[in-house]
């Protein structure tokens, strides 16, 4: 077999090996597509993008609901040698416009419901890239219709699939930024392929496997979801945003679609265990349950395991900058008395790790330090932020290590235990949130004088609390503030609780005293 060094080679190989096998199922539309059809559809997009001047090294935006067409778009873009930039269709248009403008996409595939708003926002920021508008109201396969619509007056001649260097960018995933603007994590084909190869080793996928795709495509969980089944000529079952949040329907879907490899944040698994009525269905096909993105409370994990006793469970840990970098297999039985979360485990075989103190010196096992990662899975840097990129890495022992910001301790058994964060980043239901981005959003409100946000961890998960002081006059109502936040921030960043103060406590250097705020809780 030809060595697969770039991500889209997985599709080409599977289209040759199993052309008639179902590559993707979309329960939302009851649609499906074979490997040969997916390959052909992505080739058509490649030709159109090439006709529009997209070339290797360019970026192309994806502003679409999860669908067969959004997967075809990923491969169509990669086949031109460009990198794809998926944005969250649920986020404010202004945030997505910022992202697409920030990395200067040449073309964006956009749903018609967002197209006008996006064009307007982009026009305010400068150039509007070419938009390929997909209209779901016209049928379940809007990409083919959109391509036909463009082909009629301006045929796109066949082009060649580009095989870029493994170090060329494959995708840019934007994550919450502490300065108030999201930042683009640049990931190469090598980053993706090295991770997918590691997944192959550990999970041993089979052609008969049926993978879930629960996470949205702007999450790094989607890398496993999209590429691992396609590499192994298996089937990907898309789980749309709506059904993905409804435990009873989701529980039925996992059983009916015979999902064999599940991957999601723990929060939806907790909800499934609690409200999904799992005992009602047959889950005999399910062989692996992977979770990542936040701590899985043991109480909920135990409950899930009592309802799904037979699959293997893996805790996958890692920031977007490295994708999964450590992993831990949950033992078959969870003792009744256990309350502390399971470790994040050991370093994945394709990576190396060190734990360092504040001076950047390695600490001995058993002492707390920051986990740093090196190897082919580690990002190239942040888009257009060279200084931020430089500070993200530690030079040690002749190589560069990505500083995860996570404080860990190596246990006696060699597994890393997560202790906490070095900075103000939190995870809420799998979403990565810089509390500074919420504060920046709050400061945009004309009545707000000071804003400080803290995260409160309790048994039910993380809650975000905003402390505010206001300018002269009547403070805004809580409802108005919530609405204001929802217009300026993704919904998962909207604070759960607001607290108005005359003034916010300060340190001796006149900075917000977060410690004092936490004590006020």
């Amino acid at each position, binding site marked *: 077999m030809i060595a697969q060094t770039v991500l889209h080679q997985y599709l080409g190989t599977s289209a040759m090996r199993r052309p008639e096998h179902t590559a993707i199922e979309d329960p939302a539309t009851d649609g499906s597509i074979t490997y040969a059809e997916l390959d052909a559809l992505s080739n058509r997009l490649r030709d159109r993008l090439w006709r529009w001047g997209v070339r290797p090294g360019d970026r192309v935006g994806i502003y679409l609901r999860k669908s067969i067409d959004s997967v075809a778009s990923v491969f169509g873009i990669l086949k031109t040698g460009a990198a794809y930039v998926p944005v969250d269709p649920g986020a404010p248009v202004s945030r997505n416009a910022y992202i697409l403008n920030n990395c200067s996409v040449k073309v964006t595939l956009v749903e018609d419901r967002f197209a006008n708003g996006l064009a307007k926002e982009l026009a305010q920021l400068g150039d509007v890239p070419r938009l390929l508008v997909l209209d779901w109201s016209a049928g379940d396969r809007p990409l083919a219709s959109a391509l036909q619509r463009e082909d009629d007056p301006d045929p796109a001649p066949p082009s060649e699939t580009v095989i870029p260097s493994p170090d060329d960018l494959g995708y840019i995933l934007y994550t919450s930024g502490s300065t108030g603007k999201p930042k683009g994590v640049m990931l190469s084909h090598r980053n993706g392929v090295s991770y997918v190869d590691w997944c192959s080793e550990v999970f041993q996928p089979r052609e008969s496997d049926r993978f879930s795709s629960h996470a949205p495509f702007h999450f790094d969980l989607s890398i496993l979801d999209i590429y691992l089944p396609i590499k192994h000529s298996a089937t990907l079952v898309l789980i749309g945003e709506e*059904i993905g949040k409804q*435990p*009873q329907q989701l529980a039925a879907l996992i059983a009916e679609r015979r999902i064999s490899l599940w991957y999601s944040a723990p*929060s939806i698994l907790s*909800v499934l265990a609690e*409200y999904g009525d799992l005992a009602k269905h047959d889950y005999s096909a399910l062989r692996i349950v992977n979770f990542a993105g936040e701590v899985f409370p043991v109480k909920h994990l135990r409950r899930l395991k009592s309802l799904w006793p037979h699959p293997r469970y893996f805790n996958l840990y890692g920031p977007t900058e490295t994708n999964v970098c450590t992993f831990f297999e949950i033992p078959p039985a969870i003792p009744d008395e256990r309350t502390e979360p399971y470790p994040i485990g050991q370093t994945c075989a394709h990576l190396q790790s060190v734990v360092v103190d504040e001076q950047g010196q390695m600490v001995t096992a058993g002492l707390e330090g920051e986990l740093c990662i090196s190897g082919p899975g580690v990002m190239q840097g942040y888009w257009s932020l060279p200084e931020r990129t430089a500070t993200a890495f530690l030079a040690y022992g002749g190589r560069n290590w990505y500083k995860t910001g996570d404080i860990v301790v190596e246990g006696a058994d060699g597994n890393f235990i997560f202790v906490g964060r070095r900075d103000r980043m939190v995870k809420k239901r799998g979403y990565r949130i810089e509390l500074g981005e919420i504060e920046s959003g709050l400061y945009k409100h004309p009545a707000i004088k000071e804003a400080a946000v803290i995260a409160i961890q309790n048994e039910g998960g993380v809650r975000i609390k905003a402390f505010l002081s206001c300018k002269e006059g009547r403070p805004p*109502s*809580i409802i108005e503030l919530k*609405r204001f936040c*929802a217009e300026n921030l993704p919904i998962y960043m909207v604070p759960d609780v607001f607290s108005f103060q005359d003034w916010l406590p300060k340190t001796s250097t006149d900075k917000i005293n977060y410690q004092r705020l936490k004590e006020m809780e």
Partner: protein
Amino acid sequence: MTTAIIIQGEEKMTIKEIEQAVAQYILKECLPGARPEELTSATPLITGGIIDSLGALNLALFLEDQFKIELQGHEVSKDYLNTTASIANLVHSKL
């Protein structure tokens, strides 16, 4: 304190009564600290950032439990749960 719903005899609750009970729940669970008069029949709950996906699920469970009704999956969405008025209508149609 939980928000108790009293169904007297066989008498069906009015839309207004349902809406009041829903508003009480929203104020307690999703808007701690808010003044009750801020929340109107038309305040957008889901599109206004007051209830997120997990909040909508908890609200649905509250409605099922308190009013002894059953919601369909598609009803746990902003089409049905975005205001206390639309929630009250939905619940009332199922009593």
